[in-house]
C-alpha cells in the first residue's frame, strides 16, 4: 500500500520555475522569453505607506449624496499633497471650497461623500531574485521565471529575501555559531551555520550586515528575534541543536562562494509557499528535470528521519510494512526499514516520521 510522505527538496541540479508576484496589482515590465538577472526589476506597483480618509462632503459643506458630483479626481488618479480632490463653487459663484489630498499618492476610491487616499512615497519594485528566463507573464500581477540550479528547502523562514554569495561559517555541519565567531568579513554574504542558539550572535550578524542566514537548527528562544531580524533567516532542519543533514551540507559546501537567492518566506502549506535557498547554476546541455513532487514512499527512496533518536539522519528505504508494527511508544503503526547512511545500520521508522528527499 503506497504512503503519501512529505517531500523535502535537497536537489543539486534541477530546472526550477518560480512565481514572482506583486502584493497588489501593478505593472509587469518584462516580456515573455526575456532573460533577466537577479537584480532586474520585473514588475512594479504602488504600496501605500498609510491611508487617509477625507470627508469630502464636510469639507465642501454639502450632503454626502451631492459630494460625488464635485469630484475633480477619479478613482486611481495620482494626487499631490494639497491638490483638490473635489471642488465646489460657493454661493453666487464668488468663491470655491475644496477637499484636498493630505499627501502625495493616489485616490483609491471616492464615493458617498468620502475619499480614500493612499499616501505613497515611492513605488514598490519587484526584482527577479534569480537569473533566468521569463516563461509566463501574469498580467498586472507578476511573472514566472525559469532557471536551473540547486535547491535547498527549509522548514521555517522569517518572511524576507535577498541574494548574495554563499559562505559557510565552519567546516562542521553542526557547529554552533556564537557571537565571538562572527567576523566582519562576512558582511554582504549569505551565511550557512550549523546551529544557532546564541542571541548575541544573531544581533552581531545584523550589526556586521550579513545579507542572510541559513541555519540547520535554530534555538527556539531565538525565534522572536529571528522573526524581527532585518535580513532573511532560513531554518533548514528544525528547531534545537540539530545541524545540517549530510545531503544539505553537501549541497552547501559544493556551492560555497556562488551567488545564491535566499527566499525565506514564512511557510504556508495551503498557499504552497516553502522557504528555500536557490543557487542558480548553468545547465550542462539538456535541461535537467524539475524536482519531483508528491511521490509515494517506496523501496529505494531516499528519506530523512523527522522524529526520534535518528532525527535528521538520512537513509534509503529497504522495505515498507504492509501491516502496523508495535513501536517503543506502544503505538501500532506502519513502518519502514531504513538503511541509514554510514555505519548507522538499519532501523524501523514509522512512515509518518519520514520525508522523501529529492
Amino acid at each position, binding site marked *: 500500500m503506497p504512503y*503519501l510522505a512529505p517531500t523535502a527538496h535537497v536537489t543539486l541540479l534541477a530546472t526550477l520555475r518560480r512565481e514572482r508576484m506583486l502584493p497588489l496589482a501593478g505593472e509587469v515590465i518584462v516580456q515573455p522569453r526575456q532573460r533577466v538577472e537577479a537584480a532586474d526589476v520585473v514588475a512594479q506597483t504602488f504600496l501605500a505607506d498609510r491611508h487617509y480618509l477625507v470627508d469630502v462632503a464636510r469639507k465642501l459643506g454639502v450632503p454626502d449624496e451631492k459630494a460625488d458630483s464635485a469630484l475633480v479626481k477619479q478613482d486611481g488618479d495620482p494626487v499631490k499633497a494639497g491638490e483638490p480632490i473635489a471642488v465646489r463653487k460657493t454661493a453666487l459663484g464668488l468663491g470655491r471650497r475644496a477637499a484636498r489630498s493630505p499627501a502625495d499618492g493616489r485616490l483609491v476610491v471616492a464615493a458617498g461623500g*468620502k475619499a480614500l487616499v493612499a499616501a505613497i512615497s515611492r513605488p514598490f519594485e519587484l526584482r527577479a531574485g534569480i537569473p533566468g528566463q521569463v516563461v509566463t507573464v501574469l498580467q498586472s500581477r507578476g511573472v514566472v521565471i525559469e532557471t536551473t540550479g540547486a535547491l535547498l528547502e527549509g522548514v521555517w523562514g522569517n518572511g524576507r529575501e535577498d541574494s548574495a554569495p554563499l559562505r559557510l561559517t565552519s567546516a562542521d555541519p553542526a557547529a554552533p555559531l556564537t557571537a565571538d565567531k562572527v567576523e566582519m568579513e562576512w558582511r554582504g554574504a549569505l551565511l550557512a551555520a550549523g546551529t544557532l542558539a546564541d542571541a548575541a550572535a544573531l544581533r552581531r550578524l545584523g550589526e556586521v550586515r550579513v545579507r542572510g542566514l541559513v541555519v540547520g537548527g535554530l534555538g527556539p528562544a531565538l525565534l522572536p528575534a529571528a522573526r524581527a531580524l532585518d535580513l532573511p533567516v532560513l531554518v533548514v532542519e528544525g528547531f*534545537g541543536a540539530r545541524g545540517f543533514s549530510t545531503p544539505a551540507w553537501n549541497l552547501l559546501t559544493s556551492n560555497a562562494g556562488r551567488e545564491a537567492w535566499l527566499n525565506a518566506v514564512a511557510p504556508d502549506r495551503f498557499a504552497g509557499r516553502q522557504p528555500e535557498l536557490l543557487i542558480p547554476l548553468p545547465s550542462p546541455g539538456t535541461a535537467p528535470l524539475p524536482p519531483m513532487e508528491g511521490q509515494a514512499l517506496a523501496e529505494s527512496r531516499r528519506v530523512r528521519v523527522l522524529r526520534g533518536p535518528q532525527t535528521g539522519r538520512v537513509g534509503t528505504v529497504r522495505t515498507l510494512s504492509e501491516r502496523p508494527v508495535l513501536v517503543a511508544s506502544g503505538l501500532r503503526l506502519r513502518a519502514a526499514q531504513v538503511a541509514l547512511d554510514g555505519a548507522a545500520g538499519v532501523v524501523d521508522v514509522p512512515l509518518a516520521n519520514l520525508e522523501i528527499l529529492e
Partner: protein
Amino acid sequence: MAIDTGATDTILAIDFGSATTRALLFDVVESAYRLVGCAEAPTTAAAPYHDASEGLRHALAELEAVTGREVINDEARLMMPAGADGRGLDVVVATSSAGPAVRGLLVGLLPDVSLESARRIVGGSYVQLVDQFSLGDTRGQDQQIDAVIAAKPELLVIAGGTDGGASEALLKLVETISLACHLLPPGSKAKALFAGNADLQARMSEMLGRVALVRTAANVLPALGYEQLGPARAELGQLYEALRLEQIGGFRDLAQAAGGRIVPTAQAEGYYVRFLSKLQAWPRGVLSVNVGSANTSVAAAWNGELHLSVRPGLGVGAGAANALAESHIDQITRWLPYALDDEAVRAFALNKSVHPATVPVDANDLWRELALARHVIRVAMRKARPDWPERTPGPRPELLPWFSLIVGGGAALGRAPRPGLAALVLLDALQPAGVTRLWADPYHLAPALGALAYVNPLAAAQVHDSQAMLDLGTAVSLVGRGRPGETAAHIKLVEEDGATREVDVPYGALEVLPLARGRTAKLTIRPRAGFSAGAGLGRGHSLRVLGAGLGVIVDARGRPIVFPRAPEQRQALVQLWIDQLNGA
C-alpha cells in the same frame, strides 16, 4: 437489541482533518447499522497536491483492503449507488477541518453587547479573529482602514442595533471597512455576514456589495436583552462551507457526492454531542473535546442545549507552536514524568508544528505529546467556558461543572496506545468532578455520526447504540483537600454475582477497580468529611455502573490538582499516575 431497519444502505463517512483524512464505512449487519471498517491517509489539501481527493483515494484504497469491500471504481471515483453485488456506496457524508483558518473580522456597536454577540456567532467555527471594530475602538478612521488592510479579512461578521434601533453609528463603521476593502488584493473578495438591525439589511448589501459577497441573517440581538444566535450561525456555516469549496481542491466534486455539503467537523461533532445530551443516560450533560493537529474544539451540551467552541490554530500538530504562546512552559512540563528543560519543550512543539504528522517513537516522546495535549485542552477550555450558562451546576465556579459523560477525540487522544492513558489525559486536563463516564473516540466517530444524523438519523442512532466508541470506564473524581495519605473516600464495588471489592482511597491517589465489559455492579462512594463525589461534602451515594475499559477509576487527587513544588517529587508523582492507569 438490533432493530430491523429494512434498509441496506452502505454509508461512507469521510473526515478531512488538517493532517489526516479518515474514511469510515457503515453498513447493516444483523438488521442494524454498524461501523464495519475505517482507514486513514495523509490529507492532501495543501501543497504539493492542492487536491483533497488524492489523500481520500489512498484512505479508500486502505479501506477496501481492510474491509474487502469495493467502494471506488477503476477511475478512482466513488462507486454510487451500491450494486446488488454489494459493491459501492449509497450514501456519502463528509466533514472537514482542513484548510487554513478563515481570517474573520468582527464589527459591532457596543463592545460588550453586539460585538460580543458577533464573537459568539463565530466562536463555534474555524474562524480566526484578526481584528474587531466597535464604538469602543479608539483608532481613527485612517488607522482603522490600515488595520483592515493589514488584517486581510476573508470574512466580515457584522452585528449591531436592535431591530428598528440604532443605525447611523453602525453604518459609519461599515462604511470605513467597505472603503478599506477596496484595497484588498484582487481575487480576495471577502464574504460578509450581516446579523444586525433588520432595517439595515438592504443598506448593508448596497454598501458592501462591491467589495464583498454579502449574506444577511436575522438580527442576533433583535431586542434589548434577547440574543438569538441560531440563524446567524446557520448562515455563517453556509458561508464557511462555500469558502471551503472555493479554497480546497477536490471539495466541489466530493460535495456533489455528499449531498452538496461538506460539514465543518466541529459542527458535526457538536450535533452528535447535542444528541447525546438528550439521552437519559447523561442527565448532567456531555462534554466533548477534540484535539486535532491544527484545531481544537470543545462541545458541551445539557439536555439538547449545545455550546460549541473552536480554537483554530491550536492543536498538537500544525497548531503546536501556538500552544506555546498561551501560557508559561511549565504548564506543559508539569505533566512530564522526567526533567526536560524549557528549550527542549519549545523545540518539541515547534518541530511538531513544522512536521505535524509525526508520531511518538518511545515512551518519553509519548509523554511529551500527551503533555502537550493536556495543555492544549486546558487552553481550549479557557475559551469555551465563558460561553457556558452561568448557573451550570458544579462543585465550585472555578472547577469543571458536573458532566455525566466526557468524550475525548482527535489524533493525540485517539492514538493513546492504552485506554488508561486516554483516561488519564482527560482526567488531568479537564479535572472533572463527581461521577463521569469517559469515552475515547479513536475512530473519529463523533463527527461522522453528527454528519450522518442530518441525512440518516436512524443509522446514526444505531451505530451509536452499537457502542463503537471506546468506553474507558467510570471515573469517580473527589473534590476536596486533605493530607497526603489521609483517606479521601471509601469505595465499595459489588458485582451481580456478589464479588465485592472495598478500598480506602487516600488523598492524592488514583485507584482502579476493574469491572469487565458487560458486567454491572453497585458502586458505593463514601467520601470522608471535606470531600465530595457529587452528592455533597462528606455525603455518600450509590449507583449502578456498567463495566467497560478500566472499570472504575477513583481520582482522589482533589480539585484542582496540586503539584509538589520540587521537580523530582512532581515527576515521580506523575510517573506514579501514569503507572497506575497505563498498566490498568
